């Protein structure tokens, strides 16, 4: 049976999110077996999460069912845009790079690094703009966190000094 594009797109959104919900619910429900479940009177650490994960799994199944049943096309404008891979990599990678370098490089270079990553997350960033915002934002972060809040962090880490 041929289907229109918008229809499959709408269905896919429901289907995938439903599968993710069922998957995560199964993960938690399965892991509950590791912990003591206990009785209602003496609840173990696994009791409440087990109930919640079962309920979540149920919701996930309903979402999956809706994906197959519903013919309604959701907002067709959505999902037209492709995933911004470069932005995703830089934005989500930023905190990880910061975490890895903060003790080694120290606050100043680690902050500058993450700000540069943020600057190049947008495809239309120019070099001049990137340098300018890196300097300004790094200084701003230092002002707030190092001098304002007085975080006990080395400005330059052991890899440098």
């Amino acid at each position, binding site marked *: 049976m041929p289907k229109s594009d918008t229809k499959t797109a709408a269905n896919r959104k429901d289907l995938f999110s439903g599968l993710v919900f069922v998957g995560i619910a199964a993960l938690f429900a399965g892991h509950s077996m590791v912990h003591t479940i206990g009785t209602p009177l003496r*609840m173990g650490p696994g009791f409440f999460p087990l109930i919640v994960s079962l309920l979540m799994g149920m919701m996930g199944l309903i*979402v999956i069912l*809706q994906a197959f049943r519903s013919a309604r096309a959701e907002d067709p404008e959505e999902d037209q845009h492709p995933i911004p891979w470069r932005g995703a990599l830089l*934005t989500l990678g930023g905190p*990880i790079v*910061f975490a890895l370098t*903060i003790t080694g490089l120290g*606050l100043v270079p680690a902050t500058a690094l993450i700000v540069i*990553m943020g600057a190049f997350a947008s495809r239309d960033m120019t070099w001049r703009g990137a340098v300018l915002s890196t300097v300004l934002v790094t200084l701003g972060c230092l002002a707030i966190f190092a001098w304002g809040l007085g975080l006990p962090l080395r400005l330059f880490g052991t890899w440098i000094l």
Partner: protein
Amino acid sequence: MEDLLSNVALGLTTAMSLTNLFYCFVGVLVGTAVGILPGLGPLATIALLLPLTFGMSPTSALIMLSGIFYGSQYGGSTTAILIKLPGEAAAAVTAIDGHQMAKKGRAGAALATAAIGSFFAGTVATVLIVLVAPPLASFALSFGPPEYFSLVVLGLIFSVTLAHGSPTKALAMTFLGILIGTMGRDIYTGEFRYTFGLTLLEDGVELTGLAIAVFGLAEILRNLETPVEQRPVVAKVKGLFPTRQDLRRAGLPVVRGTFLGSLLGVLPGAGAIIASFASYSLEKRLSSRKEEFGHGAIEGVAGPESANNAAAQTSFIPMLTLGVPGNAIMAVMLGALLIQGITPGPTFISANPELFWGVIASMWLGNLMLLVLNLPLVGIWVKILTIPYRHLVPIILGVCTVGTYSIGLHAADLYIMAGMGLIGYVLLRWGCEPAPLILGFVLGPLMEEYLRRSLIISRGDPMIFFQRPISATLLLLALIAIVAMVSPRLRRKRAEIIVEGES
């Protein structure tokens, strides 16, 4: 009565101290700015600024954070009117007629109406909190664990029913939030649970990092999806003052919107958003000039703007008096108070009179500041809008990362933040809103605690929730909400209201 006056006096003196006035000012200023800027909502901002409040007194912290919240409502309506881009979901309705007014050269009148309506609504809502909160708190003193458990259940169900988008997905997101909240150390047995063998999950997930991930990082990615930015066309603002006829037409809608908003704000869920939609359809129905709606009817600005501001204000009532936040923003505020070592609940007002009355008084002062601040400064706010998004990304990312790290100096919080940002973005792409997740995350531990204590009281008999009258009533209301949500007729009606507002 005398009691009330002395309380109000206490509040005013607290709020008028130089420090608190300063934080209130900073709050509403930052709030207006983020309300205007796309891609950074009040929730992410409040979460971001949480670490900065740790060093303040709890009163100053809450004054500033609430200033951000209601300030953003003002800012959101400014962009809705000037460029038809609601900076805040609750301002979506304002964009319809507000922007039409702006196109006809009446942007000034629309902005002024929105500001004056919001100020009136804010004032009335503040008085309402003063009158309603103390009796509600003393009523809640009789609540035991079963009542609280049912109240939390009702709150979660209601917020799902009133949220926009698919209620099934919202419910699943709520459960996901609750599950994320269970990771880490179990407070009863002290054993690590649901860490899946990862040491970085042993301390559990930090509220700030989670909120920043799903509202900050995921939102950046959402904004990066649109490839090249179009510079918004900003309507010229001239003639700030509404004519006498404008004021006459706006008067009753402001009053009606205020009361509708105050009422809906107390209910859990997306109070401010629903309030503005409801007020718009009410004004349209009552108006003798229906044909003007959608083409710049001033009633369509005055009503919804008053309604969403009133609702924003009264949504503090359940959080402060019952300790049960009705929406994700209140949940983060609750988190801020808990970090300061203060547990909101029925005894909160009597135990912290200065804090409670000070914050309430500051809301009124903050609304006054917004009125004075926003209209003359509209030119500056418009300039902010022309900052290209590419310059905002490094700011948001830098402050988010260093801010989250500054809370506990744990690298683990950053890894969790990146992971949650990824999950949040993917789910957002598939039509799952993140707000219920935050609400579930904050309310989950309370729920488990109340469930455990209730079942200890009843020796393991779950019927305790139905045997106690208040608890049974609350659960019955939750059941009615579920039935209403499933019934096709109501579902269509609900979709209609939301679509009408968005189109």
